């Protein structure tokens, strides 16, 4: 009796999970659609503090996306910092070494309080603490 009840319940749960997964993937791609254009044009860029920043003129939608991403980034940095016993700033800065080094030509970045720069063909000068990072 119980077993008969479990099977449909499982199927319903699987259907919900599938729908949820699909919904999430749609939301994720919708989120990056406007943003990826702003990223490749250099209107939105990566900062050495581990967060994204608005370097040029962007729509309110993109601006809000950047803010929303930064809030979520802060959360994952905080989790990592707690796990490794470091400050949130260190966790964020370490991640920035990665995000900065994988930038493509034409994308914007900012080191410290400096001005926004556009990545050219050459590799960018990473902050000194990234020097020996693999």
């Amino acid at each position: 009796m119980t077993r008969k009840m479990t099977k449909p319940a499982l199927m319903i749960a699987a259907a919900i999970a599938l729908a949820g997964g699909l919904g999430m993937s749609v939301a994720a791609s919708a989120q990056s659609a406007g943003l990826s254009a702003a990223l490749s044009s250099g209107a939105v860029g990566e900062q050495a503090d581990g967060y994204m920043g608005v370097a040029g003129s962007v729509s309110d939608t993109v601006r809000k996306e950047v803010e929303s991403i930064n809030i979520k980034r802060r959360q994952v940095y905080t989790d990592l910092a707690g796990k490794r016993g470091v400050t949130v700033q260190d966790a964020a800065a370490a991640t920035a070494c990665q995000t900065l080094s994988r930038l493509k030509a034409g994308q914007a970045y900012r080191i410290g309080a400096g001005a926004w720069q556009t990545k050219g063909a050459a590799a960018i000068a990473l902050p000194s603490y990234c020097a020996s990072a693999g």
Partner: protein
Amino acid sequence: MKTRMIMTAGFAGLALGGCIQVKAPDKPIEINLNVKVQQEVVVKLQRDAQDLIQNNPELFPQ
């Protein structure tokens, strides 16, 4: 402590050879460990950072 050791070594040198001169540096020896520690922390975190980016692609759009 350090100065004392250097002085002792100097005196020992004088007593033995008489011609060996050990000069204490004019400036104190400074070892900045903070930079190294900061660098080590960031280097160790690099792998975590890579995982973080891979596991949260929606937070790190390219």
